[in-house]
């Protein structure tokens, strides 16, 4: 298990994020891109029908039940390049809440504004965003306000424009880059003024609390989770 360096620990504490360049590469990245493209394409028509019916958001879509669709989507949950860091930050008591395998359309406005996901009272909540394609500046890259995860940070107002957020940092990156962040921190998807959709996977984790995820949540992939560590990560044994 690759544990975080002292410098990474300090950055995590002070700034609330870490970037893992080339976190996924080579054959694994190809597998991920192939599975992503195949299933995103296969899911699109149904998503559009749901948009028309007022049942789905019009500006992005997620592959439904991705863990059941291809084992690469399971393998990236505990991928070695960042899994040890996740474990270290949660005192080796990590659970998966879920993945969002997301395609975001280019649009004049980002699909979301600046926000934190959880309050300080929430158990440590961590997201890992993995770029599946190259994400250039101005094409929907992740944005984060370093330090905004701290209890004494802010207050922060929601600016009308993404780029107006004081102290923010943006994270363009190559395919395979993983960005880990504390979900108490203020973050966003920057505007995508390119003509390229942003393909990324957002993995959502939390430090375990009893009953947070039931054993049925990920039961459909139980056969693929044979080690005690994986069964714990997916809350398969209660």
């Amino acid at each position: 298990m690759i544990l975080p360096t002292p410098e990474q620990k300090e950055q995590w504490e002070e700034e609330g994020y870490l970037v893992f360049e080339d976190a996924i590469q080579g054959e694994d990245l190809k597998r991920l891109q192939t599975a992503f493209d195949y299933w995103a394409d296969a899911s699109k028509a149904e998503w559009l029908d749901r948009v028309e019916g007022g049942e789905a958001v019009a500006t992005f879509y997620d592959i439904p039940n991705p863990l059941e669709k291809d084992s690469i989507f399971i393998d990236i949950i505990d991928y070695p390049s960042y899994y040890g860091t996740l474990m270290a930050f949660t005192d080796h008591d990590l659970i998966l809440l879920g993945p969002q395998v997301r395609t975001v359309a280019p649009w004049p406005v980002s699909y979301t504004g600046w926000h934190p996901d959880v309050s300080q009272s929430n158990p440590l909540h961590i997201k890992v965003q993995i770029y599946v394609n190259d994400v250039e500046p101005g094409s929907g890259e992740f944005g984060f306000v370093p330090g905004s995860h701290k209890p004494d940070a802010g207050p922060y107002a929601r600016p009308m424009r993404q780029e107006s957020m004081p102290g923010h940092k943006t994270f363009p990156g190559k395919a395979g880059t993983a960005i880990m962040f504390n979900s108490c921190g203020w973050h966003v998807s920057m505007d995508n003024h390119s003509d390229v959709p942003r393909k990324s996977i957002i993995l959502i984790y939390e430090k375990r609390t009893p009953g947070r995820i039931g054993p049925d949540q990920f039961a459909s992939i139980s056969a693929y989770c044979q080690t005690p560590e994986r069964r714990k990560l997916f809350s398969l044994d209660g």
Partner: protein
Amino acid sequence: MPRIDAHLHVFTKASSEFPRETSDIWPAEREEPVEKLLDQMEEHQIDQAVLVQMAGASIANHRYLLHCLKAYPNRFLGIGLVPEGHPNPADHMAELTDNTGIIGFRFSTFGGPRDIFEKMDVRKFAAYPIWKCAAARDYVLWLYPNAINAHLLPYLIQEFPQVRVVLNHLAVCPGKGKFSWDEFGRPQIQVTGYNLTMHTTYRLARFENVNVHLSGQYAFSKEGFPYKDLAGWHHGLLSGFGAKRLMWATDFPWILEEPGYGKLTTIIEKLMPNLTESELADIMGGNAKRILRFPDL
């Protein structure tokens, strides 16, 4: 500051003088005339209102609306309709706005690609000539977009930043097949618990020419008046658009029986109790007066 009901409908019995389309909800013999509205406005201290055309988009179908605007020029402004697929919408709009009190037009489709991932050429959208005309003649566009059309809006708004846009009914974009009428004869729109418009129409707050109606709560809420389950939506709109771009409206006559016109004049203070007096006055009429240019009384 005047109190202005920024979106409602009046109609009279269908006749050769005032032809209109009919339906089960507004059969030929039903009438909800302007005098009935004025009685309600008088009783509840509402000064002015926006009359929105319904039951037909032809010039003839607008006769009753034009009659009301002519009879009460200081009390009302009007919003017209454009027939879908009209070969020359500019002529239709010009005829209806020739010193009549009609200030803009309502529609819900834009005629662009259904798929947001397709290449967007705004000049090829079917609604482009309407927006172009609105920009040239300073019309207001009154929009209640279908869900599958919401993603097209920012392209038009970017192209025509001078056009005043008013998103109807909490900026909700109704889904296909999600419309019905309830036992009180009110429109009902089935919406998801998660507010999808946070990722579409709410995001248009960035454009300063976009405004939103705080109205139609009865159609989306799963509760009775004052529709507390929608308080978060109101807060979200206030947070995004600010108090200067929101307009209260009742959607008369659908609300007459339940919850009643009077109750709806109090809905903003009930759902947004933290507004300052000045913000409340803006939402209850000041914004409509400024944005829609209502005449002084």
